[in-house]
């Protein structure tokens, strides 16, 4: 999947295989998200307020960056648009800088020998208004200093 600079790609996709059946993988992915979702510099809309993350099961449920542990409320990262337990999950994606849900995330749980292949696709980037895309790039600091730091980190890790 080599993509040139001329056509803006619409999606990113990544996958892992886990040694549990699709129903279990789906359940752990959704119900245990607060336990496995990794705390990284890019995990939160508001790193100072985020205390967790959770998914409300079922179509129409919310995907929430929890700011208040007592109520479980916080920033709504998206809404579930497809909930096929053990098979497929689709949810819209918003952030503080991309308030309109123009991108979405689909997670598929496909049975493979010995377990489940979990494929996550984040797509719809072509729907981003050019200004929003440029702003997002700027805000995620894929500018020179940031990218260089990221690359240095990356190079250090694979070295």
């Amino acid at each position: 999947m080599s993509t040139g600079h001329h056509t803006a790609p619409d999606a990113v996709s990544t996958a892992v295989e886990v040694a549990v059946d699709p129903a279990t993988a789906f359940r752990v992915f959704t119900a245990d998200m607060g336990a496995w979702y990794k705390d990284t510099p890019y995990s939160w809309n508001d790193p100072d307020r985020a205390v967790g993350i959770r998914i409300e099961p079922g179509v129409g449920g919310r995907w929430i960056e929890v700011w208040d542990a007592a109520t479980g409320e916080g920033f709504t990262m998206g809404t579930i648009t497809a909930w096929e337990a053990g098979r497929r999950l689709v949810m819209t994606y918003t952030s503080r800088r991309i308030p309109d849900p123009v991108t979405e995330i689909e997670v598929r749980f496909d049975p493979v020998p010995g377990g489940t292949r979990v494929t996550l696709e984040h797509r719809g980037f072509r729907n981003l208004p050019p200004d929003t895309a440029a702003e997002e790039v700027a805000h995620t600091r894929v500018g020179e200093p940031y990218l260089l730091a990221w690359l240095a980190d990356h190079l250090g890790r694979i070295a």
Partner: protein
Amino acid sequence: MTDLDATLTALADPTRRKVVDLLRQSPRPAGELAASVAMSAPAMSRHLRVLRASGLVEAETDGDDARLRVYRLRREPFTALQAWLDQVQAFWNEQLGAFKAHVDAHAVESQAAAGEPAEPARPSQAAAGGPDEPAAPA
């Protein structure tokens, strides 16, 4: 990712990283870059060729004297949407890696507890949760 590969290759060399650092401050002639890192003009020329091929830098003019040719950073590789998407991809790689580590660590109890609702947890627990080294970015 072809472009990212070229970028990573170009930046894998400490001299070239130093050149990029210098060019972040301002455009500079090749001769000055060579002098700044105490390197011969032909050796610097080879590094600049790699950096140009990767698209990280460009020559402002094509004068006859290569040492006077002024180099500067190109912004495109740094600000392209692709670069952001590479980061988005690396982010999800890391998260799915953490998910896999979680499943691996809890496989037995997860199977046993199938059907029961799990309790929500906090990110600090995930961070302290053991073998959740990220998967290598693509």
